């Protein structure tokens, strides 16, 4: 995250001292509550981190004409999966992405991500997503993948947003896309 920190610091400097002080205090508070859990014990995310994850997941996959990440239970799924599946390094990396998003909120708008209105959260995530993927940030790409697999392989994501058949029963090799309608979940 070193390169990321550098970029954010430059932007933070432009935003002025008040934001810097407030941001630094908030980040310290955030960091204190995000101590890594011991392997196999306790939740993988603190309550504060979990709240932020809910907000971020809601921005990445919002409810539209179909349910979004929140309705599909993605944050709770990711919390449980991080505990059951993720190594300490993976959990730390996941949390570091949340921290970077929070940092960007302070840098861009001078407030915590959770205190910003939805359109500003979307603006932050658009920037953060494009910049992170633009520099091939592996930590963020993995984070985003987990949000996406959490959603598209949930029952809601696979069957309402996309298509999924447990037993297709047939292979039709070449069809008009309109006949199939949507992408297959698997």
């Amino acid at each position, binding site marked *: 995250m070193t390169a990321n920190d550098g970029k954010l610091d430059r932007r933070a400097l432009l935003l002025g001292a008040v934001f810097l002080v407030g941001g630094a205090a908030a980040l310290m508070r955030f960091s204190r509550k995000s101590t890594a859990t011991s392997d196999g014990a306790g939740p993988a995310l603190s309550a504060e981190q979990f709240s932020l994850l809910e907000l971020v997941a809601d921005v990445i996959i919002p409810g539209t004409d179909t349910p979004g990440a929140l309705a599909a239970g993605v944050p709770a799924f990711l919390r449980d999966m991080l505990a059951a599946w993720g190594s300490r390094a993976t959990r730390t990396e996941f949390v570091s992405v949340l921290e970077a998003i929070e940092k960007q909120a302070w840098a861009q708008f001078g407030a915590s991500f959770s205190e910003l209105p939805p359109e500003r959260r979307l603006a932050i995530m658009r920037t953060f997503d494009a910049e992170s993927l633009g520099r091939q940030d592996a930590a963020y790409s993995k984070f985003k993948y987990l949000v996406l697999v959490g959603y598209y392989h949930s029952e809601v994501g696979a069957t309402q*947003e996309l298509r999924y058949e447990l037993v297709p029963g047939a292979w039709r090799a070449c069809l*008009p896309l309109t006949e199939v309608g949507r992408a297959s979940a698997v």
Partner: protein
Amino acid sequence: MDFDAIVVGSGISGGWVAKELCERGLKTLVIERGRHVDHRADYLDFATPWEVSNRGQVPQDEVAEHYPIQSQCYAFNSASKQWWVRDSEHPYATPTDRPYNWIRGYHLGGRSLNWGRQTYRMSDVDFNAHKLDGHGIDWPIRYADISPWYDRVEKFAGISGANEGLEHLPDGLFLPPMALNCLEVAFKQRTEADHPTRRVTVGRCAHLTEPTPEHIALGRGPCQLRSVCERGCGYGAYFSSLSATLPAAQKTGNLTIVTDAIVERLDYDHAKQRVSGVRVIDAKTKQHRSYQARVVFMCASTIGTTQILLSSTSEAFPNGLANRSDTVGRYLMDHVVGIGATGTHPKFRDRYYYGRRPTGFYVPRYVNVTEKGGAEFARGFGFQGYSGRCSWTRGAQEAGVGAELKERLRMPGPWEMQLIGFGEMLPRADNRVRLHATRRDGWGIPLVDIDCTHGENERRLAEHANQDAAQMLTAAGFENVAPLGKMAPPGSSVHEMGTARMGRDPASSVLNAHNQAHDVRNLFITDGACMASSGSVNPSLTYMALSARAANHAADLLASGEI
């Protein structure tokens, strides 16, 4: 005698030997080192994506501690994990700078449960290869010898595929082929037009597209296009020991199976010049016992069989059973993998497919066959191909969040295609499996020590395959064409073979033309160890045919009193 025959191993080879021997009326014992598995009941093939633990991913700490090698197999996931050994419990040695991936599972049915199910016949291009280029030794058989046995195993196993009329990829007795998708049809047309010497055909695979009464009588049903094959198939739609050969053997009333029985060594009776017993260690209690039979078949997998032969020393065979030639453990081969190319196609955006076809397509070998001259290496490679439209996973690399992202991922992404090379590996005496001098496993058996590297021929072949794959994709209008990369460590294609090879000369080979040990007449080996050359096609169908052929030959010899 306890039994007429003992078969060590219950995978693809062992299942076939057991079926054929039992059907010939021989009381047969199958010894499996792993646990018992119940067909259907023990499979996780009806779990939806949201029911599979951790969306298919095995916990990272568990992978690091127990599965660092096995997890490199593409089919390893949280719903198929039970078909792989824990590396932590089943270690083997390699030189630190020369890795070898020994990927395997210890359970009833062996790797027939999680194999790739690609099934191709070898041809006289393979059986005659030594005569033409001098590499390795001459196979003691030709295509005419094995062809009727390919017929026999294809009919029973159920192989889906298209006949192509190629001498170097012989036709077979196939069930109806699965169709190529829109992009594959276009790729086939362009490639065959550019190169009349090359062919693109749908992957031949051990799947029932139209089960015969014989398949149905065994409780097998048609493929449901689910593509969760690596978990085991409750429909019995793909061939495995559990769906097909062992049930058929069981029906005869002649089959006995013991599981959790690790074969430690074979006893040799010097006076009678025969294998006189099979010593096993109970995997759970570690107690020793032994079994006797008139004939013994080794089907414990290439490296497993080698380990047992090398452990079976005696006054007559100080270097391991049936090893007067000093070739047991040598000439280890795999297929060269990790090579080929990938690309995306800009067209056909209005076309899609329905169902999850459990096979890809195949480009059979052409180098040094239909395209002679120009290649700077011996033998050749085939390509297994995959194509489909990119899924939602592309969203993790492409910028975009919110309603826009959701809208975009709702529809399939661009078409992509991979050409994955499988290259022949030449047999070299110093690519070998030995017993470790000091280290032993949890049952007191010496660890295998594998030292195997690719040679200059493999490196040249890999380079050529990368270039050809990229060229074919580019010519067919693909974009973002990129070679797959460098050769994966040997073992990675899970086609290990060659360490007790067939041959005409007892001085340079272990087995004769019927997979019978030159040195020990009641010992047969029909797993991958028997292969004199690797060819370029997936070997399992050949193991099936050689196993059925050898089993019937042994039954003939038993009937005539010759063994």
